[in-house]
């Protein structure tokens, strides 16, 4: 299922495939979470409300999506709008323009998150053990000791393994870019 394109995944969700829906939530959960928490710096309880509302609306509005492949920008826009609504509610002042509510540098943050999602997809294609190792270290902030215990590898070898896995990830991304260049892009 993880090898499906975004468009294929959306089509399956629309057909009522519950496993596809769970995969869609998993695929974009970090992205939506990051927009709310990093992009808009929402408090955890506000971020949770936005997160659930994003997926609830996505589920009920999949039929209105014009381009299945555009689910990512669609989710980004929906998350942005709901974050702004939440900030507007909590501001409790006169109607405020979106530009005033949106944190400075939000567009740059979103570009970074888009790039991060590309890297994330490549990481998943790379598979374990590298995917798990890099996820534990960079995304979950686990120590060498914790990672070593969980993956049953000597903590003293983890730094070198991380370095090798990052090199593999770079190769994966460069290979993907070369393939896209050769075919003239998507």
């Amino acid at each position, binding site marked *: 299922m993880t090898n499906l394109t975004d468009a294929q995944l959306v089509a399956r969700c629309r057909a*009522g495939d*519950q496993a596809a*829906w*769970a995969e869609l*939530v*998993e695929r974009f*959960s*970090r*992205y*939506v*979470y*990051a927009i709310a*928490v*990093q992009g808009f710096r929402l408090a955890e309880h506000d971020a*949770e409300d936005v*997160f*659930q509302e994003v*997926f*609830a609306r996505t*589920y009920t509005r999949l039929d209105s999506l014009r381009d299945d492949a555009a689910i990512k920008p669609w989710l980004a826009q929906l998350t942005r709008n709901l974050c702004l609504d939440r900030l507007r509610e909590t501001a409790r002042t006169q109607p405020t323009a979106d530009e005033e509510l949106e944190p400075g540098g939000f567009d740059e943050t979103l570009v*970074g*998150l888009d*790039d*991060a*999602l590309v*890297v*994330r997809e490549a*990481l998943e294609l790379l598979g374990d053990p590298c995917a798990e190792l*890099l*996820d534990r270290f*960079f*995304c*979950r902030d686990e120590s060498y000791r914790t990672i070593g215990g969980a993956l049953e590898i000597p903590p003293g070898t983890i730094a070198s393994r991380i*370095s090798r896995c*990052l*090199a593999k*990830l*770079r190769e994966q*991304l*460069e290979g993907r*870019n070369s393939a896209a260049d050769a075919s003239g892009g998507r």
Partner: protein
Amino acid sequence: MSEQIRWNEERLAALLALLKPAPAGWIEAAAELPRLRSVLDELVARAEVDAGLRAALVADLESALIAEGVEPTPRVLDELRQRLGE
């Protein structure tokens, strides 16, 4: 910018760190939406033709949801109250 610079290891590490996992409970709740929607649809349909069930739902929505295997979160309670026309 060349791809080699764009995807150097330092940048990859920084980009990986941007996407932290959302709390597991949030993901589980969102993944459960189709099943939840199905249960709520069925419950509302039954309530439309069964006055006794409708009265029981209005009287104690939380217990009714628990009996249907649905966690009565504030979001679910709000939605169901709206759909029952309270």
